[in-house]
Each structure stands twice: as structure tokens, then as C-alpha cells.
């Protein structure tokens, strides 16, 4: 039961956090200058966007849930099953980021989810 709750938190909070961060990155635009000073400036600009901090909050919650899961199960089990976030991510990207996901990409996400199911079944 506890593991299911932590898995939900990892998937839901992790995906929510990544969507917020992705939204922030899209707002800031593409990075062309990879010098350290330019990257620091970029991080500073990102830190001034509210969505970035909401995303970090969600990702922190997901991180501590991951730690709790890792204290109970093997890393080769925990990390693959968190790929459930792929389905949540694809749906979230369509709804919130207005990304157009092709049939081929949906098929890929579906296959990934089948793989996750097999990993889950490998536990017993």
C-alpha cells in the first residue's frame, strides 16, 4: 500500500514538476551560448519564473518519495516502474504545453508502458 502511494507521488508530482519546468524553458527560449557565464545567466533568468519554483516544489516531493521507495525496493525495479510517468507526461504535454504528439510517438509511449507492466510483474 505504502509503495503504491509513493509510486503515485513519484509519477504525479514528478510529471507535474517536469511540465512546469518545461513550460519555463519554452518561455525562456532556446540556448545558443554554452559558456559558463551565459549558462549562469540563463539559470538566473529561470529562477525568476514562478512556474520554475512550482516545478521544483513538485520535483522535491517526487524526490523524497523516490528515496522512500528506494529504501524498500531494488533500484532496478523502482526506476523502471516510474516510467509510468511517460503516459502522464504525454497527456500533460498535449493538454498543457500544446505539443502535437504524432501517432508514432503515441505508439512508442504505449510500448514503453507495456515494458513497465512487465517490470512490475517481475517483482513476484
Amino acid at each position, binding site marked *: 500500500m505504502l509503495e503504491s502511494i509513493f509510486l503515485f507521488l513519484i509519477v504525479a508530482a514528478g510529471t507535474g514538476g*517536469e*511540465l512546469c*519546468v*518545461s513550460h519555463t*524553458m*519554452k*518561455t*525562456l*527560449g*532556446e*540556448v545558443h551560448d554554452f559558456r559558463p557565464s551565459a*549558462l549562469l545567466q540563463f539559470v538566473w533568468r*529561470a529562477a525568476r519564473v514562478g512556474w520554475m519554483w512550482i516545478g521544483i516544489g513538485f520535483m522535491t516531493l517526487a524526490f523524497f518519495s*523516490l*528515496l*522512500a521507495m*528506494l*529504501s*524498500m525496493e*531494488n*533500484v*532496478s*525495479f*523502482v*526506476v*523502471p516502474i516510474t*516510467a509510468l*510517468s*511517460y503516459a502522464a*507526461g*504525454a497527456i500533460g*504535454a*498535449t493538454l498543457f*504545453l*500544446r*505539443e*502535437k*504528439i*504524432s501517432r*508514432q*510517438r503515441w*505508439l*512508442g*509511449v*504505449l*510500448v*514503453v*508502458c*507495456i*515494458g*513497465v*507492466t*512487465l*517490470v*512490475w*510483474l*517481475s517483482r513476484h
Partner: protein
Amino acid sequence: MKDSPGLHLKTYIFLLFIVLFAPLGNVLLGKGMKTIGSARDWEPQELFNILLRILTSGYIWLGIACLLAFFVAYMLVLTWADYSYVQPASAFSYLVVAVLGLWLLGEKVNLLRWTGIAVICLGVFIVGHTHPRTTEKT
């Protein structure tokens, strides 16, 4: 955006960083948490003690450092590629995490789990043959 070879090369280089740093970070976190142990009663005092041990664990901080490196690479790649492309494409990290779990932590990975991970990688292969960006450049 133009479908240039440079865009794909840049994307693949950053995906490589993502695929290496994320699994290594997770394996180090797993090692740290196995050493620390899980909560039994979930009482505040016990949780506080676990938090204290987490914050003073070298494995945890090394894992966090790797995950930070992953996060920076992830943030940068998201400035030009779709989230729905980057997230599935980074799934190769699941194969790497299983290999590292087997080699470094001595975890038992059975055939069904390897099959599941292989299927995940097949999904990655399918996703990898779609264009990195489907939205207009801002």
C-alpha cells in the same frame, strides 16, 4: 524549425548526458537508502532521524550531484526539443540503471525484468524516430 543535422547531433549529445547521469545518480541514491534503511513506524522522531541520516550520507550527496548534472542537461535540451520527445527518449537510462544495479549493487534482475526493460527500449526506438520539435519556436 529547420530539420538540420546539427539539431539532431546536439540533441543526441545531451540525451547521452541524461542517460548516463540519471541512472548513476539513482544507483547512488539506492545504495545510500539501502544503508540508511526504511521507516517502520513512520513516527515524527523516526522520520527526523532518517532525514538526518539522509542529509549526512555521502552516497546521497553524490547521487544528488549526478542528478543535478542530469537536470541541467535536461533543462537545456528542453529549450529546443519537445518534452514529449525528450522524456521517452531518455528511457535508455532504464537499461543503464538495471546494468548498474546488477554490477554495483549486486541486485538480482530476472528474465521478465530484462524483457520489460528491453520493451521499454523498443518504445524509445520508436519515439526516437519522430521529430524533436512539433511546436513553433518562441
